[in-house]
């Protein structure tokens, strides 16, 4: 589904990604871990098409299409979804209207007819249950005045509505208490199918107790320096990132 080859990117003069290689197949969950500043969020942003980052090398294929050639909205239509680390507050735009516009754009791209108001509301009600989010929240301005947990649940709600092929969860666990974490993780797990894939970007192993990865990659200084199964996350948790840093220093 996703093939990342020798991806290099920078912001301003600062090189952040120094040759990432990653292959994600349908049905898989990949965790990307690493210390602060290793480039985790940059990788998520570059895949979603954030324009501040300049790609200086390598390529990304998504379902055989050259992802880096596509505008962010086209990437979303093609099936990429980024759950933001810091979801943006947008006063004056309600989640409901925003989601309706977004969903119908994506449906049009897929060659599906637009949903009418009734069908949309029905779908919305169904997906709201998944992340235990209240309709009153969705009628309000997008994320405005939402708590950290509400914002993250709104992200997963949107993911449920859009049904992307590849979801990238950028530090979705940050700022969540244990109950919110459980709800969010539950939502993500329920959305898993054999046809979609998930990349979980996280600093801590905690989230991976709830969203169990098939593969764990450790990112350090803009490169994937270690890959393994879910046990790698546990090893990282017990040994700390210094283990990786020391290993890299002696190598």
């Amino acid at each position, binding site marked *: 589904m996703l093939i990342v080859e020798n991806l290099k990117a920078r912001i301003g003069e600062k090189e952040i990604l120094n040759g990432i290689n990653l292959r994600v197949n349908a049905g898989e969950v990949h965790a990307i871990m690493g210390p602060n500043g290793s480039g985790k969020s940059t990788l998520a942003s570059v895949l979603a098409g954030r324009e501040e980052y300049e790609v200086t090398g390598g390529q990304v294929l998504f379902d055989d299409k050259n992802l880096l050639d596509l505008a962010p909205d086209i990437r979303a239509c093609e099936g990429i979804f*980024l759950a933001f680390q810091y979801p943006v507050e*947008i006063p*004056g735009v309600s989640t409901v209207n925003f989601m309706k516009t977004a969903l119908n*754009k994506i449906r049009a791209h897929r060659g599906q007819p637009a949903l009418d108001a009734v069908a949309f509301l029905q779908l919305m009600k169904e997906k709201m249950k998944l992340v235990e989010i209240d309709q009153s929240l969705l009628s309000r301005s997008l994320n405005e005045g939402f708590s950290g947990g509400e914002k993250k649940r709104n992200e997963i709600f949107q993911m449920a509505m*859009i049904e992307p092929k590849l979801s990238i969860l950028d530090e979705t666990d940050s700022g969540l208490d244990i109950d919110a974490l459980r709800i969010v993780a539950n939502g993500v797990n329920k959305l898993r199918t054999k046809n979609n894939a998930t990349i979980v970007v996280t600093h801590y192993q905690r989230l991976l107790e709830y969203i169990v990865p098939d593969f764990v990659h450790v990112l350090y200084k803009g490169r994937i320096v270690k890959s393994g199964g879910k046990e790698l996350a546990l090893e990282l948790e017990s040994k700390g990132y210094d283990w990786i840093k020391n290993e890299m220093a002696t190598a």
Partner: protein
Amino acid sequence: MTTIVSNTDLKEKFSKAFEEAQGLKSQLHKEAFDAFQNMGLPGTKTEEYRFTPIARLLEKNFNLDEIEPVPSGINSVKDFLIPDLDATVLVFLNGFFSETLSSSINNIDGLKISKLESALASGEAADYFQKLLKPSDDPFTALNSAFWQDGIFIHVPPHTKVEKPILILHINDVVDRQSIAHTRLLLVVGEGSELTLIEKSNSTGDHSIFHTFAEEIAVKENATLNYIKIQNDDGKLHQVANSLIHQSAQSILNTFTLTLSGALIRNNFNIAIDGEFCESHFHGLYLLNGSTLADNHTVVDHLKPNSHSNELYKGVLDGNSKGIFNGKIFVRPHAQKTNAFQSNRNILLTDTATINTKPQLEIWADDVKCSHGCTTGQLDEEALFYLRSRGIPLENAKAMLLYAFAAETLEVIKKTELKNYLDQRISDRLAKF
């Protein structure tokens, strides 16, 4: 006010025209013309007109040897109406009231509408005329007071709720030649009455238009006025409007000024809150492109205690457009317990669009709540990316954010047909940005 005559030539041309004109021989016309002569046209060194070079544009774009009014051949105003809005329509063509194109003004329930000249002759308008706007207040009030030839007097008698809005269309026909027009409005909303008044300007043709307005409005005790100006004239309109609304005790005022097009639009919009427990919602929105210049000079003057004013002006500027906002708030010494809020927020979409914004608060009372704020920025890139990351194309995402920004100013509009119309005009414009 210190005014520097930018061009004696211009002044002489107006003098010549004034002397030659028929029908401008009354004492009031003459006094107004003297006031104009004393002030002259404001130059760029005149503080109140620093950013708005009207004299220069008048000189450049108009033949001031021909400033007499021009006739018009327009015989239908269908294209200029607001769809689905059932309104009493009053039409001015090149500054002259057109009885044939207007709704009949003789048989409107509870309302008195007449040409200003006849209302002055009969004495009905004498208590109000030039009482709120004095020629010496502003050079263009003086010019208008000297040169006006037509206007309308609207009187809503006490305790009358006027269901049908009044729509005044100011149409300038410049197919053959330029038009210079000076129009007056005198409106009295009687005690406990309610009225919605909409003013809309349009034109046909490519020649230049210079149009001044002097508008005096009295809102009596317990009365409500909804006052909407729609400035969406695609022509070469140079417009200076002086409007003063005088509010008596417990009156409610909702205003909304939408500026979309024109060459130069200057609104001198003053509200005098001269009674206790008044409410004023003073909103404006300018969505500009091309090289349109829109200048909103506003004054909210709290003369009495216990009233509430809320001024909200917002702007989005594209292309080479220029916006100017000047918001004065006065709270007089005895106007205690005043709540006065002002906010001016702007989004610049290009490097060549500019905004000059200046709040001026003068507060002499000590027990008041006042605040003001002005911001100028660009579209929030992070918000744009967020919308795009959900599949919404850049153009739609921009329009969505701009609409969300602009829509707040529409809150003062209650009438659905009107709101829909304004909403559509706003969306149409935002889609072009």
